Structures are given as structure tokens and as C-alpha cells.
């Protein structure tokens, strides 16, 4: 079997006494789109941040193209990070810069493109996420929540990275725009050959963009399989989650 693009083994992360990830095992193949589902606060965003090196896991291994990245620092880490594009859950746009400068940031910083050329690509990427060129001249504070999300998405894919992380790409978007974004993610994977790891609570989006689905529960991946099997997983946790039922083995901690 070919080396997976990302290979995670026994990943553990805690904040103080709160254990968030408790031995996560997950592989993402080349040009594969994996969607992680799981309840709010189960550590999905933390998982992405550990892979990106923004959080330091306590234990476990993360290999990118077969190379161990846990504990990697400095120049080496920066070099690895050029492979990634990330859409943050909160978009995390640079609020001191115009929208197009946000999208062009990676092109100028990592690929050393001249400004004019980077701007052209940025405007084009904005078009792909359904934003007109005039939006490029605005500042992030002047955008709606869904528009910010789309700018964040344009920024994540602008450099055509090999690995793209989408943290809730369709949250806050209307159903039609969600579908446009789903198509765009599928295109990134199928046409550009990127490996994608997405997080979503939107099951329609999940079915559309995923090759494989993994469910995170209590710090572990409790189910992992092709998207076609998600309805026949025979896993009560997955069943409850994808049908959004309050009754089932997953108990939301609501103090009585």
C-alpha cells in the first residue's frame, strides 16, 4: 500500500485535566477526502491544530508523507506547513488587510509571486467562492459571517496546497451557497489531486464531499468507513449522530 498522505497514530491531547484526544488513529490517502464528524466539543478542531503543529500533542505520532512531524520546529516545520491550506472555523482573516490581500497572502509569502499577479489569482479565487471582485477591496470587518467563511476558504485553496483542512466549510451559508462550496471542495480533491480533511455537522455536505467518514467520540475514532456505508454502519453511535436523534447511546451532558 502506498504511504498515506497523513498518518496519525495514538494521538493524545489534553488541556489541564480535560482529556480531549485519547489515542486517535486515522489515515488520509493521497487525493482522498476524509470527513470527521462528531459532537460539538469532542476535539475535531483540536485534531486539525495538532496536525498543523499549532498545538503540541502529549503523545502519539503524526506522519506527513511518511515524515514524523510531532515535535518538529523552526525551518523544518515551516517547510512542512507550505503543504497545508487551512480554513479556520472562525475564518481567522487578517483584519488589518483587505480581502484580496488576505487571499493573496500565501501566494506572496510562500510562492513569492509579484503583487499584481497574486491579486489577479486572488480575485479569481474569490470568484470561485461566489464573491464579486469588488469584495476584494473591502476589509474583513465589512463582511457578513458567511462571506468571511468563503474568503477564508479562498485563502486556504489559493496556493493549491497538497493537503487542505476545512473546519466547518458550510456552517453559516445558505443551502445553495453550501452546494457551491461542496462542489469547490470536490473539485480541489478530484481535479487538483489534493488530500482533504474536513469537519462538518452538515450531513448533506458530508455525503457530497467525503470519500471516507470518521467519527470522533470521547477522544477516539469509533467508526471509520467509506461514505456509502455510513447508513449501514451497524454502529449505534454513528446512526444516532447522522440522524440527529436525542435518544441513543450518546448522552449529551446536560446538567439536570
Amino acid at each position: 500500500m502506498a504511504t498515506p498522505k497523513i498518518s496519525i497514530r495514538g494521538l493524545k491531547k489534553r488541556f489541564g485535566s480535560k482529556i480531549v484526544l485519547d489515542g486517535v488513529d486515522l489515515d488520509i490517502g493521497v487525493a482522498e477526502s476524509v470527513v470527521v464528524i462528531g459532537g460539538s466539543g469532542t476535539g475535531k478542531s483540536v485534531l486539525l491544530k495538532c496536525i498543523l503543529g499549532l498545538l503540541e500533542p502529549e503523545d502519539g505520532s503524526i506522519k506527513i508523507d511518511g515524515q514524523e512531524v510531532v515535535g518538529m520546529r523552526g525551518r523544518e516545520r515551516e517547510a512542512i506547513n507550505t503543504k497545508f491550506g487551512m480554513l479556520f472555523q472562525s475564518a481567522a482573516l487578517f483584519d488589518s488587510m483587505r480581502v484580496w490581500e488576505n487571499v493573496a497572502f500565501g501566494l506572496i509569502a510562500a510562492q513569492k509571486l509579484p503583487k499584481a499577479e497574486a491579486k489577479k489569482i486572488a480575485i479569481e479565487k474569490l470568484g470561485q467562492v461566489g464573491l464579486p471582485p469588488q469584495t476584494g477591496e473591502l476589509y474583513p470587518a465589512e463582511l457578513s459571517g458567511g462571506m468571511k467563511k468563503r474568503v477564508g476558504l479562498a485563502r486556504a485553496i489559493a496556493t493549491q496546497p497538497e493537503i487542505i483542512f476545512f473546519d466547518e466549510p458550510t456552517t453559516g451559508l445558505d443551502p445553495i451557497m453550501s452546494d457551491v462550496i461542496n462542489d469547490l471542495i470536490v473539485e480541489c480533491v478530484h481535479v487538483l489531486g489534493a488530500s482533504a480533511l474536513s469537519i462538518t455537522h452538515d450531513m448533506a455536505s458530508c455525503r457530497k464531499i467525503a470519500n471516507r467518514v470518521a467519527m470522533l467520540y470521547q477522544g477516539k475514532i469509533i467508526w471509520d468507513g467509506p461514505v456509502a456505508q455510513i447508513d449501514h454502519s451497524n454502529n449505534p453511535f454513528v446512526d444516532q449522530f447522522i440522524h440527529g436523534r436525542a435518544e441513543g447511546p450518546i448522552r449529551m451532558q446536560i446538567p439536570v
Partner: protein
Amino acid sequence: MNPLATIGRFAIAFLQRIGAVAFFASRAVSHCVRPPFYLRHVGLQMMEIGYYSLPVVGMTALFTGMVLALQSYTGFARFSAEGAVATVVVVSITRELGPVIAGLMVAGRIGASMAAEIGTMRVTEQIDALHTLSTNPMKYLVAPRIIAGAAMLPLLVLVADIIGVFGGYIVGVYKLDFNAGTYLKQTFDYLEVMDVVSGLVKASVFGFIISLMGCYHGYNSDGGAQGVGRATTNAVVSASILILVFNYGITEIFFSGR
């Protein structure tokens, strides 16, 4: 409660903090001297620190020089040493008051804004986003501010020195009836190069401290708006205290032998 244990805990926390700041400082400095350099950012920060602080620093320097002349005149009159006023003004301004007052004013103005800006970027994940866009935030955010701080404060202090001496001159000539020529002569006759140089060295160190504290507290802030508020306060308070501590230390180094 064991009081010794409490003191011990405080001491350990204090030493840990010093270690963390020293580590941050060494990282920041190492990024200041290794490419790539963000020259545009250095320029912007220089404008912000040097140019936009001029009114505040100029005003404080002017009134400090004025009150210094007035106070030393009334004080020295008690032992008929009024003639020393001009010398006292220029020496105190260049050695001490110019750098310290400019440092404290800039700490309030710039230290606070750096901590708030970088702190906000931290809590809104913009610093994380920089990482994912192959940009090292230490190099992109911190290094330009440190360079600009250490480079601009001496210039600012030079201007403050001139304005402060001018303030003393105004009070000396127009209020205390010194002869203008004599006042100027006394100002420059006893002034030594070392007086000015020591003041500028202090200024550069203070500029470094202000930027370092602003960036350190901003960079390590957490907990949303409250955390950013805390970072801002801490940046100003710690920079101000460190300025006074280092001021004593540098004075000791320059002038203790004489």
C-alpha cells in the same frame, strides 16, 4: 499555610516568568538578524513609534524642561548658585529625564497598542493562520516591532532633549531674566558627549523593552477580550517598571567610575 512555601512558590513563578521572557527575547532577536526581513513592516512601525509619538513626547519634554529650570532656580537661590540652572537642566534632561520620560510615554502609547493588536490576533487565531500560510509570526509581527522600537527611541529622545533644553531656556530667559547668550553658553559649556550618548543608549534599550513587553504579553495572551485587556495592562506596567530598573543599571554602568 506555610509562609515559606508561599514565598517559594512566588519565587519559582517569578523565575519561570523571567525565563519565559528571556527565551522569547532571544527568539525575537534571532529573527531580527536572519532573513527574510519585512522591511515594509519595519518602516510602518518606525512611523508609528517615531513620528506619531512626537507630539506626546514633545509636550512632556517641553514642560519637564520648563519646570526643571523653575525648580532648580528657586532651590539653588538658597545657596546663591542660580548660575548652575542651565547646566542642571541640560545634564538632567540628556542623561535622565529625556530618555525616561520619552520611554514611559511611549510605553503607554506603543506598548499598549502592540499588546492589544498582537493579543487580538492571538485570540482570533490570526497568528495560527500566519503559521499555516508559511509565515513565521515571530518574524512577521515581533521582529519588525523590536527593530523599530530600538531604532526609533533614540531619535525620539534626541528631539525630546532639544525640546526639553528649549523649555528650560524659555523659562530661564523670559521668566527668570537670564541673559539669552549666557544661558546658552552655560548650557553647552559643561555638556559632555557622554551625557548625550548615555541618554541615547538608554533610549535604545527602553525602545527594545517596550516592544518586547508589548509583543510578549500580546503573543501569550489568552481568554478573549479580557485576556487582551490583561495583556495590555501587563505590557505597560512591566515595561514601565523595567525602564526604571534598567535606567538605574545603565546609569551605574556609565557613571559609577567617575
